[in-house]
């Protein structure tokens, strides 16, 4: 199996505060990794850092993505190369329609790979198919990007982007937060069915309920910027039963 992401000995800080400490993670093609951890354990840092957010300082370690040095790649290149982050809090942008945004994003990627860019009419056909999968209405496209969207609509819109961009590595940052059961079901089923067979998922979550829809190949427990334990579904049960404290070497007060 091809290696997709290889993080070794990664240490990251923000404002001189250590957030990830000698962190390791390896993701191969067609795997589903679940990362669980308490608030402030570094979960969101990991997802933003992988996507290239400028706030973080890499103190040491390496990240390889598709056998390339990820640290040297600009955020938009990471995207073109197939890294996709479904945001916990998708940003609102006024004056830019969802449709224009989607088409620009799609065409930028096509351009990067030397493929055909689509005009607004051609792109509509592609978008319509994906919209139906998520049970989204056409009017979604004419609204300004995420502006005034409900929590559920924003998350669906994230997955719509995923379907259109066809990424290799999908990071879901608390995709389940702020979602009702029905919306969660549609979103998770769509991801599970539609993702490219060679693609992999990193699911960052607090709640095990999302695991009703996915069969994780790996489960990791992240505490204080470090993976304390890796295993399978049995870890989830342990967390449910004993809480994160049971994984902590120095127990919290």
């Amino acid at each position, binding site marked *: 199996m091809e290696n997709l992401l290889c993080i070794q000995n990664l240490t990251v800080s923000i404002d001189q505060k250590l957030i990830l400490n000698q962190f390791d993670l390896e993701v191969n093609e067609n795997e589903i990794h679940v990362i669980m951890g308490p608030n402030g354990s570094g979960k969101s840092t990991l997802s*933003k850092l992988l*996507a*290239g*957010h*400028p*706030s*973080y*300082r*890499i103190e040491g370690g390496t990240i390889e993505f598709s056998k390339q040095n990820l*640290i*040297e*790649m*600009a*955020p*938009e*290149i*990471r*995207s*073109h190369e197939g890294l*996709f*982050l479904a*945001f916990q809090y*998708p*940003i609102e*942008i*006024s*004056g*830019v329609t969802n449709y224009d*945004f989607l088409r*620009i*994003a799609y065409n*930028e*990627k096509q351009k*990067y790979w030397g493929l055909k860019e689509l005009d607004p009419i051609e792109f509509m056909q592609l978008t319509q198919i994906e919209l139906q999968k998520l049970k989204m209405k056409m009017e979604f496209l004419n609204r*300004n990007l995420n502006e005034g969207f409900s929590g559920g609509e924003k998350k669906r819109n994230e997955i719509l*982007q995923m379907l259109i*961009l066809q990424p290799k590595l999908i990071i879901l940052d608390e995709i389940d937060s702020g979602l009702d059961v029905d919306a969660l079901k549609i979103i998770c089923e769509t991801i599970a069915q539609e993702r490219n067979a060679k693609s992999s998922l990193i699911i960052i979550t607090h709640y095990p309920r999302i695991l009703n829809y996915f069969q994780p190949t790996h489960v990791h427990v992240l505490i204080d910027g470090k993976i304390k334990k890796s295993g399978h579904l049995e870890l989830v049960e342990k967390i449910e039963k004993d809480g994160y404290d049971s994984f902590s070497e120095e127990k919290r007060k």
Partner: protein
Amino acid sequence: MNEKKTQSRFEIQHVLNQPYKYGFETKIETEKFPVGITEQILDSISNQKKEPPFLRQFRFNSFKKWKELEFPKWTNLSIQPIDFNNITYYSIPKQKKKLNSLKEVDPEILKTFEQLGISLDEQKRLTNVAIDAVFDSVSIATTFQEKLAKSGVIFCSISEAIQCYPNLVKKFLGSVVSPSDNFFAALNSAVFTDGSFCYIPQNVDCPLELSTYFRINDKESGQFERTLIIAEKNSSLSYLEGCTAPQFSENQLHAAIVELIAFENARIQYSTVQNWYSGNEKGLGGIYNFVTKRGLCIGKNSKISWTQVETGSAITWKYPSCLLVGENSSGEFSSVALTNNYQQADTGTKMIHLGKKTKSKILSKGISCGFSQNCYRGLVKITSNAFYSRNFSQCDSFLLGSNSTACTYPYLEIRNSTALVEHEAKISKVSEEQLFYLLQRGISIEKSVSLLISGFCKDVFTKLPMEFAMEAEKLLSLKLQGTIG
């Protein structure tokens, strides 16, 4: 790609600094007057243009007024003193004989306009836009005149109008902006050399978009153009002006006057895309743009809309205004002003409500980058007779980078208690999180910034005529991107 990119904050400043595309200079022989402003110079201009006595007198009176007026000091602008005796007031491309058709225009000049993306060849032009091209002090060519004449529309240079329609010019010139209105209005009235003239007769909707393109080429000359548009009862037109200039390290002066008159039920939409040379990244050079634009809604139900996209000039001093006299008349001002480096803009509008049930709407979007200063200054005046008048103003500012300034000066003068006046103001910055989101979706930083800005300006762009809206958006993203074609 450098390693820093992932670790340091997004660097957007480099996105904003790119060369000026229209900065080339056309080498042509010119015929110009000696520098300075004197009664002899006025006389020479009048002689050169074979003007009727009333106009000669108009110039002399204006010159007298100008000498009594002072350079305006009430703005936020810091301006190096201008030596008005070191400016050439009349400069025209040298030509051997009178031009009868476009074929006789100096090919160098035609090439200049081609290079600016303005083809004066009627075959090649967008078929629904007529153009008057002004090069330094003189109008070079006006296209589609015959087609317009069929519907009774007069569209020509103001010099031509002075010769062919002196009564119209005499009646309306200076009727909206009097020469004593302000320092630059007086200066322009004394020395204006060319510009556009447009007359739409009763019950005619102008069949084409009308457009004037202004080009300053000469290093020492100022451009003082004058535009006069008259829309008779039940008529309508849409008009656009565009402006560029070569890149010099000296500042050049541009002081224009635009007068619009709308009679009963007439509609005038006046759009500007201003891209004069703005100076280099250290603030050297660029056009000083001092413009007085005013529209008179004299008739019932008349409407004047000003839409402007201001991206150029070292200094912009400009307040397109509406005098709302006719009952139920309305005025609109929609503006995008982008400043970068050391550009300074002090722009806005005046809405003077004189008649009953008059309405005005102001939508201003200022974007400041670099060390620039972007200031909205607007007056809404409701006089005691303007019963049941309404105004709505919205002034939004957008700051890019941390060294630029945005100011808003709304002046409200309300003398009638039945009036309804609303004002909204907002200031925003490019948020790092917005940029990050767009970058994560594979949209480059240049494109992301320009997407955010065009989103910010969208409400104004939708007011522009279609072709120009696209041009304006392109111009803005060019200004922001540095992807030079």
